[in-house]
């Protein structure tokens, strides 16, 4: 996702003592996006750290927490440099505010596996500066030099056995000048970073006390659902709501604008069940005459035709004619099909808004607080600053809450506008979610490979067909020469060294909204590359790991390190597989992280049974190894959701054919690996992504194992038959 405009951060720390004497440290920085970068804007102060009189240290997390563990990892970074007592650390999700924007990307967001990458230094510096100020306050109090003091576990110690708790020093510390430069710890000095810390939010998520966005409850709050058009962009022609109004608790039924220029019918009731039943009773006539009706079968025909023609050039090197000079017997042609996929985070999409005329308050789980706040403000005729935007704990997202057009928040704002003064919670039912678009786009890959006498690929012609994710969004400027990097990432930039290499892309415009799905383009590109490389290795009768190593760029050090570690750790079981079991290998580099895995697979009940996976990752400094282990294990299961039978969104005459989990299948526990052992390449380099990198490797690894068992190659997902 967006990593453009990575301008140098110019950060200014400003500190103020709040009325109650807590230490408040705020981070200021220039607005770094595009044309606004020259404009020097100062932001109003807000807190990252509060040291409370009771010793609690409350740390504001400038990201959404939706499972990825950042609500533990960012406070951990800060607390390590602060020498804070970890047992006293409390994390809070920060509301939308300029000071909480991503320090590199310039908007408040979670995406591209970037939270730790871009806030690693930010949070450590905040901790180190605060620690220095606490020590300075203690030194002043004791009339000694700061160098004579040191800190540990939220206590400053000075000469002569003197000590003071952070909570006792906070007020004085707030009056200390902010050090311009602070020395950060060397890796050998880390007390929390790299040690493996349990999540801060576990207990609340195990006893029902954790509140999520869907749990927001306000006095007098109403609940809304929306009847969406059956075809994207269609509009309401007429509404008969007489039956709906017969239900007790139904308050209002009215038309609102929805995504893609369409309209829908909002139903507002006292409670969800009345709203849902009322929606079921609506008789809505839709104007579908003017909208394109996408149809999967027709789209595949079109995609296949396009796949046989050259598209816009994404990458070209070497000689284009070499492929055609290679004999047919030394050529391999393969066509791959990937369907639309829904994200389906377990917490259905929702947003609560109260509009008070000159201001508004919103509660939502958002990966794009900046955009969502702006969208709500726009619909309500307010400035973004007039919308207080609370970041709610969120039940998953996987990209589905990073929506450039903020369509859910716009719907909620349109409803709140009508209900002025009354808070209203918009709930997208699971049916709205499955049928509501914003899918991982369907893709076709057509690859022609010419194989050299050494068994290695000599020439490679690759055509990718798929909708652009960036077109029509604020990120469209990142499209270069018509090529959306999100479509070709993982192929165009492959670390495999192929001399004559030509990649082109077609980006058809289709009336189906699409969106990044955890690991974005890598979901399909890694599958294509890693299954083809495996096939080439088998054809060359070479070990799949040795073959990859031979073909990999010397400079692909992180991927090589991951491959080496995985090979070593998996050797013990790969070398003594039971009958009917096979090992499948895959590796991939994305979000600056190299991941390699080996999967032990058999076939049970005509389904892949994944007995174990050994995975190794080089992600630079492993900030919280326990979270990395969790993300690797969970990411693998997310990747398997490309494989399970029924995991496809299809359209017929414009209408989505699935509506809930009875039609769109997700992995259950038996579909996941029985065990996943995770190994992190030791490193003191800057941290890189961990949320998305595990996703792309598992599906090709499983399919490569299946190919060994059945002799078949699997190029169409999901695996409805083996």
């Amino acid at each position: 996702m967006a990593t453009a405009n990575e301008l140098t951060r110019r950060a200014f720390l400003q500190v103020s003592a709040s009325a109650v004497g807590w230490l408040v440290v705020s981070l200021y920085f220039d607005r770094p996006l595009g044309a606004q970068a020259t404009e020097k804007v100062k932001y109003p102060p807000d807190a990252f750290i509060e040291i409370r009189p009771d010793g609690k240290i409350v740390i504001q997390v400038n990201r959404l927490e939706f499972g990825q563990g950042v609500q533990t990892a960012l406070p951990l970074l800060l607390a390590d440099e602060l020498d804070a007592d970890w047992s006293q650390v409390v994390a809070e999700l920060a509301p939308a505010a300029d000071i909480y924007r991503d320090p590199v990307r310039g908007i408040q967001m979670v995406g591209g596996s970037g939270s730790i990458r871009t806030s690693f230094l930010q949070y450590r510096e905040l901790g180190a500066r605060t620690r220095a100020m606490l020590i300075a306050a203690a030194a002043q109090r004791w009339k000694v030099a700061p160098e004579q003091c040191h800190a540990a576990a939220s206590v400053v110690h000075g000469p002569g056995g003197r000590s003071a708790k952070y909570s006792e020093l906070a007020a004085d510390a707030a009056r200390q000048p902010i050090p311009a430069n602070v020395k950060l710890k060397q890796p050998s000095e880390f007390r929390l970073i790299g040690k493996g810390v349990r999540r801060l939010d576990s207990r609340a998520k195990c006893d029902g006390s954790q509140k999520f966005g869907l749990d927001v409850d306000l006095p007098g709050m109403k609940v809304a659902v929306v009847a969406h058009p059956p075809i994207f962009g269609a509009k309401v022609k007429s509404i008969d709501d007489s039956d709906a109004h017969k239900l007790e608790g139904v308050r209002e039924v009215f038309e609102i604008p929805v995504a893609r220029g369409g309209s829908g019918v909002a139903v507002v009731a006292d409670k969800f069940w009345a709203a849902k039943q009322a929606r079921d009773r609506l008789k809505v006539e839709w104007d579908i005459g003017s909208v394109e009706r996408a149809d999967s079968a027709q789209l595949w025909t079109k995609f296949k035709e396009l796949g046989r023609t050259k598209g816009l050039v994404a990458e070209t090197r070497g000689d284009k004619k070499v492929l055609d000079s290679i004999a047919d017997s030394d050529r391999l042609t393969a066509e791959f099909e990937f369907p639309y996929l829904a994200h389906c985070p377990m917490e259905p999409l929702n947003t609560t808004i109260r509009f008070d005329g000159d201001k508004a308050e919103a509660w939502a789980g958002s990966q794009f607080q900046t955009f969502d706040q702006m969208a709500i403000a726009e619909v309500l005729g307010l400035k973004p600053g007039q919308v207080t935007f609370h970041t709610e704990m969120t039940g998953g997202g996987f990209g589905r809450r990073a929506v450039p057009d903020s369509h859910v928040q716009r719907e909620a704002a349109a409803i709140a506008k009508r209900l002025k003064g009354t808070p209203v919670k918009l709930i997208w039912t699971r049916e709205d979610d499955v049928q509501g678009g914003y899918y991982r786009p369907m893709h076709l890959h057509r690859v022609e490979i010419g194989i050299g006498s050494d068994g290695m690929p000599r020439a490679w012609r690759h055509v990718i067909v798929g909708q652009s994710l960036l077109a029509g969004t604020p990120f469209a400027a990142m499209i270069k020469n018509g090529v959306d990097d999100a479509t070709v990432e993982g192929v165009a930039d492959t670390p495999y060294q192929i001399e004559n290499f030509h990649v082109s892309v077609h980006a058809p415009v289709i009336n189906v909204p699409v969106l990044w799905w955890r690991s974005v383009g890598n979901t399909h590109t890694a599958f294509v590359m890693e299954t083809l490389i495996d096939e080439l290795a088998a054809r060359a009768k070479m070990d799949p790991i040795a073959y990859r190593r031979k073909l990999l760029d010397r400079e692909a050090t992180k991927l090589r390190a991951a491959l080496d570690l995985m090979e070593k750790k998996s050797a013990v079981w790969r070398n003594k597989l039971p009958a009917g079991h096979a090992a499948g290998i895959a590796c991939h580099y994305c979000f600056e992280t190299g991941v390699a895995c080996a999967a032990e697979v058999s076939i049970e009940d005509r389904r892949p049974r994944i007995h174990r996976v050994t995975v190794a990752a080089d992600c630079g400094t492993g900030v919280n190894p326990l979270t990395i282990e969790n993300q690797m294990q969970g990411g693998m299961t997310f990747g398997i959701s490309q494989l399970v039978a029924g995991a496809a969104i299809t359209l017929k005459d414009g209408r989505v054919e699935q509506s809930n989990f009875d039609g769109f299948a997700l992995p259950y526990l038996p579909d996941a690996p029985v065990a996943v052992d995770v190994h992190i390449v030791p490193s003191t380099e800057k941290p890189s992504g961990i949320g998305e990198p595990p996703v792309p490797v598992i599906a090709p690894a499983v399919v490569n194992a299946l190919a060994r068992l059945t002799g078949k190659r699997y190029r169409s997902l999901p695996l409805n038959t083996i």
Partner: protein
Amino acid sequence: MATYRLTVNGQRREVTADPTTPLLWVLREDLKMTGTKYGCGIGFCGACTVHLGGVATRSCGEPISLVGDRPITTIEGIGADPVGRAVQDAWVDRDVVQCGYCQSGQIMTAVALLKHMPKPTDKDIEESMGNICRCGTYVRIREAIKEASRQLGKGGA
């Protein structure tokens, strides 16, 4: 609308609701007990699992009019039960949760499993745990169930 007398986590509660209202929404909206989650509304994901008369039940498909006098136990109350507490502790010890949204249902299902099968095999776990976790915490759910079983076997809970 009708009035129903319920026993929730050992407490008597009275609600007035449309008879077709699923127990899930009565818990969430009338009783303000939001630990029980809405995930799909058709009984496929298990996020809404509660114990109804001691049986793990998907509350999204259970109309309030059919609950009768069966006692209801939810995630908010399961910690008072030794098996429930052991499962919650194992979940925390194994750092199972990610987004956490499905975990109320996972825990309620796991507690029901361990009450009927104190020493479940992998196969028992696979056959019983029909709850979707989109974050994919299944590997750790499996481990945590075994850990809770071990702890309960030691008489530790």
